């Protein structure tokens, strides 16, 4: 009898989760409490509570997965805010939160301004942390397209003891060649090299996107060359092989490029994991 009842516990829990959703408790906690309230409720255990909220954040938004599957990104900022209010020195929470706030859906919330504000808060709380200041600079460059401010912040980061020398070079590069693909590649390579878990994965996706854009440039040039030589546009990208094109006709994730014969342009396929609305 006891065994039967014990077996019924996980089964009934499964039924409740199926009806009400697995993450409902998280929402309740979120909307009831702010970081200050949680701090007041658990004096002496603030760091432990910060860890709990951090684990909730990672659990919900994914430790290793990059893409959102029915994720509610409106929960991300409150969760990270509670975490860093309880433990203002948890550097990873600022970096992780900012990354997924700034990215566009399905990778993030598409709120780069909120991401920059979060990083600014991190820089205020951890003024001697060059990585946070570096991220703030890079986010100004990449997400807010403000090369001037980005360069200034990167130079500030370079002056912090322990900061690597490449920050000075990167600051100059951002200012002089702001907007070009090679600078973006440098930026994401730095984030990839220093990143952990999903932030590293996210940077890897950006690097793959940049490679895809390079490959697309080559494909589109090959299409023009084909048209010049034959007088017609290729019916499919595979036809480019006949004219000697040896480059890839698929993006680094293996999804073939989309091709519109009417315009004669190849683009990233919408079903590619690398596709983003802003990538043209």
């Amino acid at each position, binding site marked *: 009898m006891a065994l039967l009842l014990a077996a019924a516990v996980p089964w009934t829990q499964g039924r409740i989760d199926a009806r009400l959703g697995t993450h409902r408790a998280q929402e309740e906690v979120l909307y009831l409490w702010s970081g200050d309230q949680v701090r*007041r409720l658990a*004096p*002496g*255990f*603030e*760091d*432990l509570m910060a*860890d709990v909220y*951090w*684990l909730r954040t*990672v*659990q919900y938004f994914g*430790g290793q997965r990059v893409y959102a599957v029915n994720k509610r990104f409106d929960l991300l900022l409150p969760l990270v805010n509670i975490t860093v209010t309880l*433990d203002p*020195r*948890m550097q*990873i929470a600022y970096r*992780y939160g900012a990354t997924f706030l700034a990215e566009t859906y399905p990778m993030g919330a598409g709120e780069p301004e909120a991401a920059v504000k979060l990083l600014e808060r991190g820089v205020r709380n951890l003024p001697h942390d060059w990585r946070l200041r570096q991220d703030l600079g890079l986010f100004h460059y990449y997400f807010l397209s403000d090369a001037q401010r980005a360069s200034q912040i990167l130079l500030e980061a370079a002056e912090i003891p322990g900061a690597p020398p490449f920050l000075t070079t990167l600051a100059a590069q951002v200012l002089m060649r702001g907007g070009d693909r090679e600078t973006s590649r440098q930026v994401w390579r730095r984030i990839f090299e220093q990143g*952990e*878990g*999903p*932030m590293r994965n996210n940077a890897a996706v950006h690097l793959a996107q940049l490679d895809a854009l390079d490959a697309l440039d080559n494909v589109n040039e090959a299409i023009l060359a084909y048209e010049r030589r034959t007088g017609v546009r290729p019916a499919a990208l595979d036809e480019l092989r006949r004219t000697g094109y040896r480059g890839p006709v698929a993006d680094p994730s293996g999804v073939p490029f989309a091709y519109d014969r009417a315009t004669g342009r190849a683009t990233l396929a919408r079903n590619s994991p690398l596709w983003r609305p802003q990538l043209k």
Partner: protein
Amino acid sequence: MRRVAAVARNTFRESVRERVLYNLLFFAVIMTVSGLLLGELSIRQDAKIIKDLGLAAMDLFGTLIALFVGVGLVSKEIERRSLHPLLAKPLSRDEFLLGKFAGLGFTLLVNVGLMTGGLYATLLALRRGADPALLKAVFAIYLALLVTVALALLLSILTSTAVASVSTLCLVIAGRYSDVILNLGDVVPGMPAWALRAVMILIPNFRNFDLKDRVVYGDPVTFGDLGWITAYAAAYTGTVITLAVIAFRRRELT
């Protein structure tokens, strides 16, 4: 002194018999599970979280033991009438009380010591290094537990077990809100400064004993800091135990 030690020894044995140290099993489970899972879940924050978790568990479990066992130390002996034959022996009330305090103090020392061993074992198993600075936070937690035992003892002599449990718990919680007490003047503008000062002195400042955040982040905690925290604990515990001794001398045993 020998008689105090004998009572202390018996108190420790009684605690073990009453399975007070069973909380260590929970601690072991928490440490093992967190050690196995946190690496995956926390994006390389496992060492920090294990330290936070281990120190918080010591603090929480220790406080609960200090409070609930502390409250029953003397009152249970009175209720069970087992105190009378003891006091008929060549044992004064003062020695009995001090022995009880020392016995629970030793139980808590064993408890905290084993938990510290578990925490270090988990960190070493994960190859995260055994940071000796953690011992400073552990020491401060232990001092806080001694203050809690002293308060529980005093209040259990002055009132009933239930009232003593609630009031000790209230004092422990209030002591963790020392920053709020400090700013009480802003909330209650008419409150005289001397009254605020009196509240601050009366309620034990448990924030003094909270070094968890500082040691986990590697902030310096000097031996001077530890010395002053120890001095505060000694002064507060000494005062409360002295009051408990006086109250116990005057207590009528029916």
